[in-house]
């Protein structure tokens, strides 16, 4: 038996023993465990599951043990995921700390910062949010205006962020702030961490066209941020942000694509429209549009699988991540348009004031943001034309 086979056997046994029955069921948005100071566990099982996994370092399996992880190799991590999937085990913890801040600290943080912040993330003790976008700085993120004035011991941060997911629920924020007003646009930004309960921080949720949302506007009015809460050097925040944006892009591009295509779309179409006497969807022209979409989607699934295999092999995706982001989000918009068309008049029934977010109309409207958040499709195309094609 190879080491990996051994690892698989052990993992399987441990999961079998430790994963509560309730945590082996399909999960909706409402079942996600985000952790944090004010977290109220949905159930005893949810709490146990987090504790047991965190104790083993398996909330962040590839992070070093010193920082709350388990130091697993890429192969071991894959085995763990496969074994969890085998029993439909839910992820014990999700958070922007795991997805975003963690990788940034591992790459750019000081040893003290890693030892201080990472274990809190791994154990789900502190919930983080991300303060990047501003009302005047969308695609041109580097033009952000939130300023951090050097006051000796601390920066005094003032300004406004937008699109801060769960800012109203988060404990801490990692935030891009202009600390060097004299420097060139990209060189004056620092990457700061601070407590959302600091005096001067306030948040306000944003209502989307698809209904309520986790997004907030976040306001900073002379918030004091101690200087040891900067990640990397002063003025290097843009480098860290770019690193994370690429990371985020891959995640967004990869969202919502089931291998070998849209069961949801196919099901909606069959249920809503029925089939004719030849067993074909009884809206012959819409049927053609669906076929056209499925071809593009299955091809994209192949591309996504290839990208994942590259990542497993330790390859940097580079420009390919912009391709995935662009293609994946544009496809999802098409999928949702087709679902609405297939749903027809019935899909128009929808209550904005009471939208739960999983109705056809909510998903359709929400999908329109996919090609804006995490870098617009236009920005992706510009990146590709420069990075991959060397045009302009």
């Amino acid at each position, binding site marked *: 038996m190879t080491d990996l086979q051994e690892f698989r056997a052990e993992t399987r046994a441990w999961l079998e023993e430790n994963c509560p029955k309730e945590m082996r069921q399909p999960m909706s948005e409402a079942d996600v465990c985000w952790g944090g100071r004010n977290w109220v566990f949905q159930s005893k099982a949810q709490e146990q599951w987090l504790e047991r996994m965190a104790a083993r370092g398996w909330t962040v399996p590839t992070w070093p043990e010193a920082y709350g992880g388990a130091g697993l190799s890429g192969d071991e991590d894959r085995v763990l995921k496969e074994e969890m999937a085998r029993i439909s085990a839910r992820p014990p913890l999700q958070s922007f700390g795991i997805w975003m801040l963690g990788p940034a600290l591992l790459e750019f943080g000081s040893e003290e910062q890693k030892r201080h912040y990472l274990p809190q993330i791994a154990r789900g003790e502190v919930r983080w949010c991300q303060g990047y976008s501003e009302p005047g700085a969308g695609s*041109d993120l580097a*033009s952000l205006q939130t300023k951090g004035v050097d006051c000796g011991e601390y920066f005094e941060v003032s300004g406004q962020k937008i699109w801060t997911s769960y800012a109203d629920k988060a404990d801490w924020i990692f935030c891009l702030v202009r600390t060097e007003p004299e420097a060139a646009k990209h060189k004056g930004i620092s990457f700061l961490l601070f407590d959302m309960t600091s005096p001067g921080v306030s948040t306000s949720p944003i209502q989307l066209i698809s209904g309520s949302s986790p997004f907030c506007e976040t306001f900073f009015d002379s918030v004091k941020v101690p200087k040891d809460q900067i990640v990397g050097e002063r003025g290097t925040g843009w480098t860290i942000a770019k690193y994370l944006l690429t990371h985020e892009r891959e995640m967004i591009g990869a969202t919502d694509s089931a291998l070998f295509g849209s069961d949801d779309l196919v099901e909606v179409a069959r249920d809503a429209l029925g089939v004719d006497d030849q067993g074909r969807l009884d809206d012959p*022209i819409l049927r053609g549009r669906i076929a056209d979409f499925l071809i593009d989607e299955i091809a994209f699934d192949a591309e996504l699988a290839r990208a994942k295999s590259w990542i497993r092999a330790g390859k940097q995706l580079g420009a390919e991540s912009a391709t995935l982001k662009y293609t994946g989000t544009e496809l999802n918009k098409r999928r949702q348009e087709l679902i609405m068309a297939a749903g027809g008049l019935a899909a128009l029934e929808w209550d904005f004031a009471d939208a739960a977010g999983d109705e056809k109309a909510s998903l359709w409207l929400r999908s329109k943001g996919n090609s804006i958040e995490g870098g617009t499709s236009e920005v992706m195309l510009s990146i590709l034309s420069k990075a991959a094609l060397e045009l302009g």
Partner: protein
Amino acid sequence: MRLMSEEQTMIRDMAAGFLDEKAPVDALRKQRDSGGGYDRALMGEMADMGWFGMLLDEESGGVDMGAEAAGLVAEEMGRRLSASPFLSSGVMSAVVLRATGGADWAAKLASGEAVVAMAIDERVKHRPDAIATTAEKSGNGFVLNGAKRFVSDGAGADRVIVTAMTEDGLGLFLVDPGLEGVQSRALKTVDSRDAADLRFDNVQLDGAALLAMGDAAQEALDGALRVGRAVASAEMVGVSKEMAERTNAYLKERKQFGIALSNFQALQHRAADLYTQIQTTDAAVAAALRAIDEGSDDAELLSRVAKAKAGKTASLAVREALQMHGGIGMTDALDIGLFMKKARACAEYLGDGECHGDWLLRQRGL
């Protein structure tokens, strides 16, 4: 009948002025937040301006200005998402009642005293010929059984024109939704307008409820659908133009990377392409409205092409508007979502591109 261009300008300007004041986008937003539908008092004012009698003759209290006039009003409504039962009651039901001699209810809807809705659809896609609802003869009257879906302005309607199969073919019935056996379920809809699902369980109709039967019924229904499609298309042209104009204004105003978005050629070309689509659609809709007023043989074809094309163009216009506005376009605080929802509902209602494209090919023997 054919409007002079000064008459057109006058109708358009009056509609624009009135709707700017009484039914701008904010009015729909407020209506939505207080439960949807429309403002009945405001409808009365619209009726006072003659809008609900544009397709009725003077004996029925109408002003007989034709489909082109109705299209002009609808386009201005589309620009402002103005809510009223104009299309259902003032256009489609008016056409049915005119064709079938229902002068008393025609007069009531023309004056704004009553709302008459059309109950046509039974499936999730528009298939006006797929009718499972039946009306069986019973004494001097009929017994109505069946169900209709997504009856536009059906929740607040005083009467509903229902399509049902009789032993003599298609029948059109004017049904009081207050009758025993009628169940109405008001729907919350994506465009925040009035709509209802209706069920009829052994509803007893007296003989007077029958508006028309057989070929006459089919002709009246076809006429209403034809005008309805063309006027709905004009409303979508209004949506498209408004979205394109707001977006172009935003492109000039919004700066990224130090320059206005309007300087980015990729956006310029997309905006220009959208402009050409809107121009083409505008021409197709105008041709359909005119063909209807002229009683041309092409009216059926053109009204279907107009509906299909206007749906595609409005969908493109709202998608481009949202994408070019970026994140802020996703917020409910901006109006783009409201236009997007309207465009979707309007594209679906009375048949989409697939529906009319299929008809077109069958006509050609394909």
